[in-house]
Structure formats: structure tokens, C-alpha cells
């Protein structure tokens, strides 16, 4: 296997709050291979966006990066100065933000917002043709060149963000819930667009979301996050066929089916206070299979080649329903 | 063209020139004070405040008939308007007739002429005769002599003829003075010397030294003080004594009327407390007298004026020219003491049936002895004086309260209609060289009921009764006597006994103005040592001041 294009080791991002630190992203590690799409899933608040901002070094007060290492293309990102790192942003590491609806400057034309990132990183503003080429790549009509964000629909804005992300041929694109706010039809169009440019440009991608259905459609590997920790990483086929962690199982099984009506899985319990994670397994308060061993630390371990999991009962529970 | 600072004299202007393009002085506004009647328009005579004499200017003299109903004025030969036309009797007759015929021109001088003159006639080019409606020995000084502030100014017939005097703007203006109008904006007016001035040609007087005269709006005491310190101003309007000392400390070239404390020059209008004689309990002369006893004039001088003026001894302005009359009153025993005699005042109040209540205030029939004193809020000098009077009255047992009102309201609604119990005023103002102008303002002929406007703001105290009638009889007699008649001082003293007994108003203090004058560029300013006239440079007699200025160093 070649060297991963992006490698994250022990990343910790904490938010200070009046009642102590929120361990929003706590000691996560993963690799992103060249040309691969990695899905990062987890329920709302599990720290997906926070992990992204940690990688992009965009954690602002009250948050802070409490530790960890990020290597991009063999370069240690943590060691770079702010100014150096700024130059790496977008040219190597682009972001399709969560909520593209609000991610475009309302008082700037679409074209200008694409142009300014190109100008900043290459020194020259792109000509009209280049911008239109980008529009075409994501299936946007030419007429939006002169338009302002509010004149576009949500799906179009999302695609503008995609166009912007690929403008500089970055090495890695992080798509943070690029489609969750959209209708299914539009979501499908946007997802397809994303897949198309990814394949055309050969970029590596991290796709963040909580919709397992969409993940099944789009990604090569999946990392499951729960309460700031990654609990399982597996190739997408393995993940759906043989999820190793009870939480992964729940995620997969709670996707309602369109083909058969069956009683739904009900999981009870409330996620722990993110400031006070329990000792040992992070999921123990909601896990249906909890036992005494769960209070011991649960390191990630290889279940089978390519599939790692943080559960001491993984083998034992395999095949069991939640 | 530029004129060097050392050839320029800069006077202070304490208000905006609202309408710098209009030189029709018959309509109200600042159409004269910004240099027009100080440099461009000359008066016929100028009253000398030191000697009481009328110095001839555009006129050379006058004669009156026996009963002072007809006056003949002789004009100076060789006077020219700045456009070269001769100034002569036609101009005088034209201008006076204009005032007589046009009731809508409302300036005070025009109204006065209208009230006094029956007709005017030219005798020859340099002689004019006025027929008056009533005898008035003071006709010339009142109308043409710069008695106070201005005089009736003669306008050029050849420019004004055919114009509507109510609306004519008279721009560009011309005059007979040694300066012509150069430019004006709302905050300054510039006048440049006319080297072809008639006075120099005829030998009447040399050309004045300043090549340029500027009247500059300064924007308040602080800025005028700063301008004075930085030599950007040659003569400033009134400042407080502390301010003057601060200026002088920073710029030793700045002087005032007196070289030492109290620095200030006296103003022709002495301050007084007007008492409405129709309102109980102040309709009782004894009560008014009691107030007079209670007031401590020296405290007013010390606090409100910081010692820059003196307590009034009589109703008159204490100029040298008034000395004979003041002395006569004092000799007769009617002069006022500088300090109070509170006990005497309280005795009078108690005699009138009042007794002191628990809170130290007099009471009668369950009523407190109280008084509202109206005061014009336009100046802190006024309000401070009344603050002190109020304090003094309160301490003596009279519940006094000051009621400050705005200038226009004070003069338009309060004073003339008698809508006050007591008020701060300077209504005995008028006499500067003879006593009638002031005394004539309290005669019974001017008494009207409260709520009607008292004619000419005279006797707003509505003083009537036997004493007032006796007083009026003497004063009316005085009215027809020629100026300087030796009978007059005696008559003043005789009339004054009634004033003293009844006190329709209580003289407080002399008014003073502290005008800083800068000797950095110019010397020859009017001062107590160099008393060619008084120093109010916004008056029509400023011609004299400018002629007296000499380049410093």
C-alpha cells in the first residue's frame, strides 16, 4: 500500500465551557489513501465537524487543539506557521462546508467568490472561461456567473461549493454533510456531481454524514464516530455486512427500509455529558450489550484486515442483532 | 488684496451677521454693528461721555428756539460720499422724511424720529430745520448724538431715491466714513480704508492709521480669550474678570479700561429691582423700602461681578457728566448705602403686621410672605445677581424665588405688561449727560393697568398715587428746561424724595463691561487715563476710537 495522502493521529479538539472541557473530538486517528473516499458517520454532535476543523486548523475560541498530528502529503501540518498553513488551505485541502446555504458571502457574486480563492493562491484571477468550466463540471448554468448566492437554490449553492472546492485541484476534499439539508432528488444530483468530479480529478475525499444510505452509495471505507471517538473503521461492504461495533450496528439497522415493513429498533438512553465521558467504552450508557468489561479502556483493534473496532465483544456479537 | 496684520485692526463681534448682503439699517438685525456704523456711516455729533459735550462730526452745530420745538442744524462743508457725491441737506431731509413717511421701517431711531418730528426742511445746502411735535431740549443728543449705541444715520439720497425703504438692500453700501465696504460673510465683515476720504482732504481729520478694519465673530468667551492671547483680535467683547486676568497673564499686551482691578468700564444702564406697585403686599411703600434695606449691594458686586463694579448710589449711571445730579441727590440724603440694614428692613415688615413663622419666613393671616422675581435668562450676570438677591431676601424672612425667562419673553411679555411681582431690569437707563431721560420714565402719565403694555416701557412698575403725581409734576417741568440749566440739580433732588420714599424700583449696582484691548499692534485705545470717550466699539462713536489708534512700536 502506498503512503496515505492524509494521516491523522491522536487528534484532540476540546471546547472550553463554563462547566469544563467538551471533548468534542477525542484522540482520533485514521488514514486517507490516495484516490479513496472515506465516510465519517456519527450522530449529530459526535464531533465530525470538529474533527474537520481540527484538520484544517480552524478551531476558534473557545475551542482548542489539545493534541495530535496531521500529515498531508508527507508534510507535518502542525509544524507549519499560520501563514504557511494558510497557503496550504484550499490549494491542498479544500472543504465543502456543512450548510452551504450560509457558506457563501451574501454580498459577493458567485464568480467573485470563486475568483478570490484562485487569486489568493495562484496570484492571478481566473478568466471567465475557467470559472465557466468549473460551473460546467458541476452542472451549473452559465447565467449564475453574475448572480448572488440568494438567487440560487440550495442545491445550486451546494454545487457552487463543490466547484469552488475543485477550483485549485486540491489533494484532499472534505465534504461535510454536503447533502443533508437537501431533498432526496436534489441530494442525489449533488452526490452524483461530487462523485463525478472526484473521479475526474482523482482527489481523495472525506465524506461526512449521518445517513448510512448515502454512505452506502458513495464511499469506499467508513469510519463511525460516537461522542468524539472513532469506534470503528471498515470498508463499506464489510461495514454493512458485518458491523463490528454495536453502535455501527444500530446505525445500520435503524435505516428504515423502503421494501419491507418491519418493527423498528428502538434504542433508549441518552448520550453522556460530553464533558464527562464514562471510563472505558464510550458507548456503554446506550449499548444493549454492555457488561463489566466495558469499563476498561477500549483501544481500536483489528477485527479483520481493513476493519478495526473499539469493542471487546466484537467477535462475540457478530451476527447478533442489536 | 492682502493687508498686513500690523495694518489691520480686528474687532470682536459677539453675534452672527445674519444677513451680510443687506445694509438697510432701518430694518432690525446686525446691519450696523459689524462695522457699518463704526467705519462707514458717520453720525452728525458724538456725545462725549467724559465731558457731556456734543462733539460735532458731520454737523458743525445746532440751534434751538426758545421752547425747544424747532432745531436748526448746520452741516459740515466738504463732506463727500465715498462715490464722490456731495453730502448735504438734501440727504438729511430725504432720510428724515423717509422715516416720517414709512411707518413700516421699524428701527428704533426711525421710530423715535417719527414720534418727535413734525416736519423737516432744507434751509440751504448746509442747513436743515426740524419742527418738533412737542418741546424737547434733548432732541439733538437723542437722535443725532450717539447717546446710546447708535444715532439716526443719514443715507445718500442719490442711491435711495425711489427705492422702497422697507425692502431695499442697499448693496453695495456707501457712506461718508474713511472706510468702504470690502466683503462680508456671516461671521466677519471687512472694511478697507478710503484714502480719498473727505475728512483728510478738508483737513477735518487725518486719515486713520489702520488700512483695514475687520469685525470678526469669535464664538463665545473662551474663543475670544484665546484669540486675544494669540493676538488674532485687537478688541474683545465683555469677558469676566478671571478670564481677563488669564488673558493678561498670557499676553501682557492686553489692557482694559482701568489698568488695575476692577479693570471694567461702566455701562450706561445701571441695574435695578423693579417692583410692581399694584400687587399686594408690595403695593405698600414700606414693604418696598424694607426690601431696599435688606439688599446688600456690596455682596452683589463681589459675587456677581467679582468686584468689577460698584453699588449704585442713585438711579443714575455714575458717569462724570452725571456727577452734579448724583451729588444733589446724595446731599439731600437720598443716596443708598452699599451694605444692608436687615434689622431696619425687618422692622418695617413687622410694622406692616407680619410675624416670623417657625421656618424663619414672615407670615400674616396664614399666608407666607413670598415673592417671585422675574429675570432675563440671557446673561449669567442677571441670573447671578438675582440668585444673590433671592438668598438675601430668604435669609431675612421673605420667601423669594427667581423665575428666569427668555430674553424675548422677558421684554415682550413680562416687563411691559407688568406681569411680575419683582423683576430684574435696567429700565431707568437713558441719562448719560442729563437726568430727565431716566427720571422721565417713571411719571404717572405712563401708568396703564396691569395687562396693558406700558408706553415706551416706561413706569412698568405702575407707580401712581400722590407721591408719584408730585414727582411727575417736577419731572415734567424739568423736561422743558434746556440742557445745563442750573435749576436742574435742585429739581432732581426734590423729585427724588418721592422716589426714595416710595421705591417703585430699587437701584442695585452699576453695570460694568470688561473689554480687553490688545496693544500688540495698536495703541491709543480709550482708557480711564486716555478718556476721549468710552470704549464700546460696537457703538456709532467707534469712529473716534479708530482715529485714535496708532501703530504700536
Amino acid at each position, binding site marked *: 500500500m502506498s503512503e496515505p495522502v492524509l494521516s491523522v493521529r491522536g487528534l484532540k479538539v476540546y471546547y472550553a465551557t463554563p462547566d469544563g472541557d467538551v471533548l468534542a473530538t477525542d484522540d482520533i486517528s485514521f488514514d486517507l489513501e490516495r484516490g479513496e473516499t472515506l465516510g465519517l458517520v456519527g450522530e449529530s454532535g459526535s464531533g465530525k465537524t470538529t474533527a474537520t476543523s481540527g484538520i484544517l486548523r480552524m478551531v476558534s475560541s473557545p475551542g482548542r487543539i489539545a493534541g495530535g498530528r496531521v500529515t498531508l502529503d508527507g508534510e507535518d501540518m502542525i509544524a507549519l506557521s499560520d501563514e504557511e498553513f494558510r497557503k496550504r488551505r484550499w490549494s491542498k485541502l479544500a472543504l465543502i462546508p456543512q450548510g452551504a446555504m450560509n457558506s457563501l458571502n451574501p454580498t459577493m457574486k458567485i464568480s467573485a467568490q470563486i475568483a478570490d480563492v484562485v487569486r489568493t493562491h495562484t496570484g492571478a484571477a481566473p478568466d471567465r472561461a475557467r470559472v465557466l468550466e468549473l460551473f460546467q463540471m458541476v452542472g451549473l448554468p452559465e447565467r449564475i456567473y453574475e448572480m448572488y448566492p440568494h438567487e440560487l437554490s440550495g442545491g445550486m449553492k451546494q454545487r457552487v461549493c463543490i466547484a469552488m472546492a475543485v477550483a485549485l485541484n486540491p489533494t484532499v476534499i472534505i465534504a461535510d454533510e454536503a447533502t443533508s439539508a437537501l431533498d432526496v432528488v436534489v441530494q442525489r444530483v449533488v452526490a452524483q456531481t461530487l462523485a463525478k468530479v472526484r473521479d475526474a480529478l482523482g482527489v481523495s475525499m472525506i465524506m461526512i454524514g449521518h*445517513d448510512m444510505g448515502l454512505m*452506502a452509495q458513495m464511499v469506499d471505507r467508513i469510519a463511525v464516530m460516537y461522542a468524539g471517538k472513532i469506534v470503528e473503521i471498515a470498508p463499506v461492504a464489510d461495514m454493512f455486512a458485518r458491523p463490528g461495533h454495536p453502535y455501527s450496528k444500530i446505525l445500520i439497522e435503524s435505516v428504515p427500509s423502503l421494501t419491507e415493513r418491519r418493527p423498528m429498533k*428502538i434504542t433508549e438512553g441518552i448520550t453522556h455529558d460530553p464533558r464527562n465521558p464514562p471510563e472505558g467504552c464510550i458507548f456503554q450508557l446506550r449499548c444493549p450489550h454492555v457488561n463489566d468489561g466495558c469499563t476498561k479502556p477500549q483501544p481500536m483493534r483489528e477485527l479483520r484486515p481493513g476493519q478495526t473496532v473499539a469493542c471487546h465483544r466484537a467477535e462475540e456479537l457478530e451476527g447478533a442483532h442489536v | 488684496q492682502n493687508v498686513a496684520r500690523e495694518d489691520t485692526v480686528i474687532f470682536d463681534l459677539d453675534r452672527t451677521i445674519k444677513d451680510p448682503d443687506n445694509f438697510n439699517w432701518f430694518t432690525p438685525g446686525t446691519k450696523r454693528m459689524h462695522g457699518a456704523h463704526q467705519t462707514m456711516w458717520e453720525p452728525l455729533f458724538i456725545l462725549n461721555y467724559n465731558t457731556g459735550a456734543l462733539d460735532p462730526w458731520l454737523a458743525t452745530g445746532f440751534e434751538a428756539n426758545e421752547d425747544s420745538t424747532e432745531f436748526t442744524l448746520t452741516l459740515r462743508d466738504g463732506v463727500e460720499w465715498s462715490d464722490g457725491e456731495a453730502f448735504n441737506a438734501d440727504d438729511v431731509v430725504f432720510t428724515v422724511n423717509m422715516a416720517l413717511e414709512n411707518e413700516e421701517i421699524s428701527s428704533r431711531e426711525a421710530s423715535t424720529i417719527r414720534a418727535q418730528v413734525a416736519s423737516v426742511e432744507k434751509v440751504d445746502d448746509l442747513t436743515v430745520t426740524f419742527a418738533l411735535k412737542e418741546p424737547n431740549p434733548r432732541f439733538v443728543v437723542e437722535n443725532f448724538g450717539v447717546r446710546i449705541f447708535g444715532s439716526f444715520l443719514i443715507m445718500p439720497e442719490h442711491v435711495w431715491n425711489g427705492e422702497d425703504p422697507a425692502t431695499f438692500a442697499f448693496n453695495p453700501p456707501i457712506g461718508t466714513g474713511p472706510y468702504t465696504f470690502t466683503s462680508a460673510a456671516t461671521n466677519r465683515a471687512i472694511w478697507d480704508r478710503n484714502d480719498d476720504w473727505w475728512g483728510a482732504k478738508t483737513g477735518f481729520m487725518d486719515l486713520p492709521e489702520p488700512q483695514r478694519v475687520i469685525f470678526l465673530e469669535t464664538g463665545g468667551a473662551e474663543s475670544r480669550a484665546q484669540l486675544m492671547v494669540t493676538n488674532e483680535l485687537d478688541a474683545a467683547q465683555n469677558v469676566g474678570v478671571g478670564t481677563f486676568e488669564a488673558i493678561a497673564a498670557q499676553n501682557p499686551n492686553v489692557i482694559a479700561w482701568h489698568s488695575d482691578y476692577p479693570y471694567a468700564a461702566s455701562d450706561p444702564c445701571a441695574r435695578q429691582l423693579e417692583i410692581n406697585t399694584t400687587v399686594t403686599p408690595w403695593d405698600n411703600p414700606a414693604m418696598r423700602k424694607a426690601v431696599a434695606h435688606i439688599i446688600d449691594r456690596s455682596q452683589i458686586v463681589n459675587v456677581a461681578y467679582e468686584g468689577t463694579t460698584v453699588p449704585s448710589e442713585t438711579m443714575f449711571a455714575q458717569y462724570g457728566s452725571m456727577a452734579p445730579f448724583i451729588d444733589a441727590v446724595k446731599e439731600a440724603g437720598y443716596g443708598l448705602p452699599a451694605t444692608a440694614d436687615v434689622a431696619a428692613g425687618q422692622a418695617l415688615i413687622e410694622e406692616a403686621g407680619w410675624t416670623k413663622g417657625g421656618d424663619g419666613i414672615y407670615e400674616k393671616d396664614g399666608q407666607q410672605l413670598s415673592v417671585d422675581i422675574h429675570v432675563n435668562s440671557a446673561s449669567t450676570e442677571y441670573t447671578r445677581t438675582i440668585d444673590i438677591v433671592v438668598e438675601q431676601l430668604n435669609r431675612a424672612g421673605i420667601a423669594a424665588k427667581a423665575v428666569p425667562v427668555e430674553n424675548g419673553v422677558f421684554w415682550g411679555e413680562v416687563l411691559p405688561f407688568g406681569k411680575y411681582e419683582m423683576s430684574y431690569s435696567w429700565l431707568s437707563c437713558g441719562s448719560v449727560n442729563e437726568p430727565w431721560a431716566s427720571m422721565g420714565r417713571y411719571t404717572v402719565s405712563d401708568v396703564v393697568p396691569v395687562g396693558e403694555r406700558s408706553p415706551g416701557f416706561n413706569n412698568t412698575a405702575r407707580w401712581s398715587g400722590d407721591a408719584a403725581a408730585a414727582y411727575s409734576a417736577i419731572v415734567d417741568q424739568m423736561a422743558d428746561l434746556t440742557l445745563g440749566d442750573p435749576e436742574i440739580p435742585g429739581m432732581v433732588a426734590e423729585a427724588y424724595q418721592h422716589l426714595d420714599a416710595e421705591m417703585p424700583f430699587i437701584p442695585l449696582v452699576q453695570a460694568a463691561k470688561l473689554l480687553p484691548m490688545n496693544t500688540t499692534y495698536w495703541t491709543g485705545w480709550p482708557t480711564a487715563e486716555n478718556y476721549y470717550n468710552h470704549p464700546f466699539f460696537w457703538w456709532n462713536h467707534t469712529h473716534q476710537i479708530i482715529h485714535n489708534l496708532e501703530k504700536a512700536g
Partner: protein
Amino acid sequence: MSDALLDLRDVRKVYGDPDTGLVALNDLSLTIRKDEPEIVTIAGESGSGKSTLANLVLGFTRPTSGQIMFDGTDVGNASAKQMKAYHRQVQAVFQDPFGSYNPFYRVGHVFDMVIRNFKLSSNKTEARQMMEEALNAVGLTGDDVLRKYPHQLSGGQRQRIMMARAYMVKPRLIVADEPVSMVDASLRASILDVMMRLRDEGGISFLYVTHDLSTAYQVGDRILLFYQGTLVEHGKATDVISNPQHPYVQLLIDSVPKPDPTQRWQGEIILPAEEELRTAHSTGCRFVPRCPHAQPACSAALPPAYEVGPRGHRAACILHAPPPQA
């Protein structure tokens, strides 16, 4: 029609000018019967008029034309007093469970309000019992939640409490506007389960508004699909979803990502330039600009709902027009 609980007749809602404004809901007729409680799903993409319908039924807005009858009263013209009485019968659960709580008060406030205003009980212990019972119905206990502030609860708990609140009023109908779209996948099931239990055990009908077809399939008895304010297809949920007949509904169902990496999307769909055909002037089928089967006749008039299957399965598309009778 005395057996109709809720009866909508040609209900139309236009925002703005009645002639040129935006038709949020186009002449909808719908009946929910008294005798058999059911979950009626209202589905469609964003902006298709689902919430408008919910608000009309709840009396928050009044229809531009048409009538909404509830058990004999005209909801569109109800007085304030009638409205209060009406709300005893019809309750709601909204999309954003957090927004439904006044942040100033403890959770108990939502119950107190109902009890006080509807005079459900004047006795404290009785009231407490009612709350407890309602909370138990959604799997919670009063001690757990009533003294807490809303932000101290999880999203799922908040939404279940809202269900409990609606249930406590013992209404005949609950309008649930996207009750699970802001709740995590893992908690979704429990809320939908509550809905089904309330239907079965409490005899309460639901107007279940959602854009998520899979949950509609799981819990819905009947489904109505909207496109830009018009009803395009309706019928039994299982019928419609497993066998959609309207091109839009087909596209919709095809676009739902399948949670199976081996069954990825086939083919590519293209969205034409968005163009809304929903001013009051618009005629014809609203789906024309995106429809692969569009034909000139589609734009002429709004197609009626043709019968396309058993048990009242109907679709408003001329593809299903019965062949003209000879």
C-alpha cells in the same frame, strides 16, 4: 358526512395576491374518518406545501378558499372560543422539538399550560398523575424530566415529551409536522413507535408530515404526495411506495439512497433549470419542466387524479388517463 373527523374540501392557500401570488396548496380535498384511527402521511419535497397544510389544519392560517370541517365545525371561520375547543381535539407536534419549549420555563410548563387552560384537572395530584401517565405512554417518567429545563434533555426525549403533551390532551387528531427530521436516526424509531402506539391504543389519528419516504412507508397507513402545492399521488402507503405511478413519485423513490453498497444508483438524473409553476396563473401539471414524459397536453390543464390501483391508489398524471371512451 357525519363519519368524517376531518374533512377538507377544495382547500386552497395562496400567499400574497390571490391572483398572482404563490399557490402553496392547490385545491386539496382530504377526509379522515372517525371510526378508524389512521396515520395519514403528507410527503413531498421541501416547499411543496406540507407545512402549509399542517398550519391550515391547526388553524394558524386560514384558507384562501375551500373549507376545513372538523367534526361539524368550520375551522376556517372559527371564533377564538371555538378555536380553543377545537384545539382540545386537534393537537400538534412540530419539527423542531427544542423550539417548541419556552426556554424560560421548565419542561413541566408545557403540561401545566394544557391542564390549566383546558381545565383538565384542578387537583394537583390528579394533574401530576395525568402527566405521569402521558409520559409513561412515551416511555418516560415525570421524575426524570419535569423539573428539567428543555436544554437538559436529548432531542429524542424532547420530541417524546411533545408527543406526551399532545397525548395528554387526548385529542382525536395529532398533526405531526416532520416530528423526526431533527432527531438522530437511532432515536427516530422510538418516536415513530410512540405514534403507532397512540394510534392503536389511544385511537388517535395522525397527520404525519414528512419528506422521508422510508419512515412514511414504515408507519403510514395512507400517503399523500405533493409537488409544488398540488397533490400528485395518493393511496395506501405500501401501495404507493412499492408501486409508484406518477413520474415525480417514481423519481423520488428512486432517489432514496439504499443502505446497501451493492445497490448503487443507476443512471444519472439531470435537474433542469428550476422554474416554479405555481403562481395562481399557472395551468397544467406542475412537474412538466422536470418530467421525462412531458407532452404538450400536460401544460393545458391540471390532470385529475386517475385511479391507478386498488384501495384508492390514484395519481394525477395523464399517462394514466383512461383511454377515451369510444
